[in-house]
């Protein structure tokens, strides 16, 4: 009987230790939320480069900006935030953003 109690206690302690160990790891899974960009010339290029670092809702949440502002933003991504976007593609992206998410001029 005594042995049984000790054994049960050992199992309980092991169980607690296991629980503590398991509880020590805190994990979550971030949901994937799809954002569709508006169809238009340059959409694929925009999606390809911008989504390396961030989801596309970063684009769709912005107010409508003139071309000058979108130019500043894209250049900021390249020069300040380290986005590897070749100059020719940057132009395509700026034109796309201005046409689809800007004031068009």
């Amino acid at each position, binding site marked *: 009987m005594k042995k049984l109690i000790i054994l049960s206690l050992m199992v309980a302690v092991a169980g607690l230790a296991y629980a503590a160990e398991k509880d020590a790891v805190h994990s979550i899974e971030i949901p994937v939320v799809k954002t569709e960009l508006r169809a238009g010339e340059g959409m694929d290029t925009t999606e390809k480069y911008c989504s390396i670092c961030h989801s596309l809702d970063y684009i769709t*949440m912005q107010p409508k900006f003139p071309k000058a502002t979108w130019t500043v933003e894209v250049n900021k991504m390249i020069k300040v935030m380290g986005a590897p976007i070749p100059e020719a593609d940057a132009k395509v992206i700026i034109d796309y953003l201005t046409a689809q998410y800007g004031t068009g001029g």
Partner: protein
Amino acid sequence: MSPENFSRRNFLKAAGAVAAMTAVGGFPAQLFAYERRMARFPEKTDLILLTSRPPQLETPLSYFKEMITPNEALFVRWHIANIPTSVDVNEWRLKVGGNTEKELELSMADLKKFEKVTFTAVIQCSGNGRSLFVPPVAGGEWGDGAMGNVTWTGARLRDILNSAGLKAGTVDVSFNGLDKPPLPTVPDLVKSLPADKAMEEDLIVAYEMNGKPLTMLNGFPARLIVPGWYATYWVKSLSDITVLSKPFEGFWVKTAYRIPETDCGCVPPGTTPKKTVPINRMTTRSLIIDPSGSSELTLNKPVTIMGVAFSGGRGVQDVLVSVDGGKRWEETRLGEDKGKYSWRQFFYEWRPTKPGRYDLMARATDTIGESQPFEGLWNPAGYLWNKVEKTEVVVK
């Protein structure tokens, strides 16, 4: 309506943009180029989705009817894509080093051995209210829900730094977390504080929010709390504290999160400041929560106008309310005082006796007389928003 009162909200309404408010907190959905979506992230309730990678989630205003913002409703804001999603607390260490007598590697148990400090403090994103800027500015297009009032528990940063021992010549202290940039060219999120600020009594490394472990998205297992200052300094999932004998030169302090070096932290709309300084103390602000902007009120039926007010750590002296667009101002009753870093609720009993449209306004003043502007103060990054806002209601 005079041109300066002709807000962007009114403009868009006049322009016939989407007139419908979203279901949550009367948020003006028409401010945005897209429909605001709700999303449920782990350990969170349905929040307004700004971005998903990295996550930026905004609290619906209705949660601010409560004195304390529930953990699952608190806003979320990360900067760089590779955020921590799994942390083994037994393995996690907070490293303290640099210009110190000794290097520390604190486990969670070590952190909990320091004196336990608990207080309630408003946490607010530097860009809260950015979507209200005119002309608009680029960035996280927050409404007013990038804030919350939370009871934090942790160890004093000062006690931790003293335990490592600051060497002579210390200038700054920098803070890094477990989040990592998606590319080596992207600047890692590291923040710094001047050493004298870091050694103030009320900064803590918090391991609990509202009596529970931090949610992963709010900085599990521990984050810096700099009460009274904007949340950009409240580094999440803290892993490294580095004491520096030279001024910190990192991108997120030297280039980003800066405000014009003017008394108001503002410049004429659309212009570039000559000189900037790192953003710091929060400006005094208030917000009417109830009734919300989409409310229809009943003639002669009493209604309690309720909201929240806070300052950059100096406590709220009073909050005045106007029901006629700012012509007459009335004193309000302030709710429970949970300390100078917490927000105060304010209440004003009103019985509308004429039908029509009313502009409700609230204006807070802190204990040294700092109050809120009637016109939005503008700066290029969209920070420090604290304009006296108008809540339009209709009495029928």
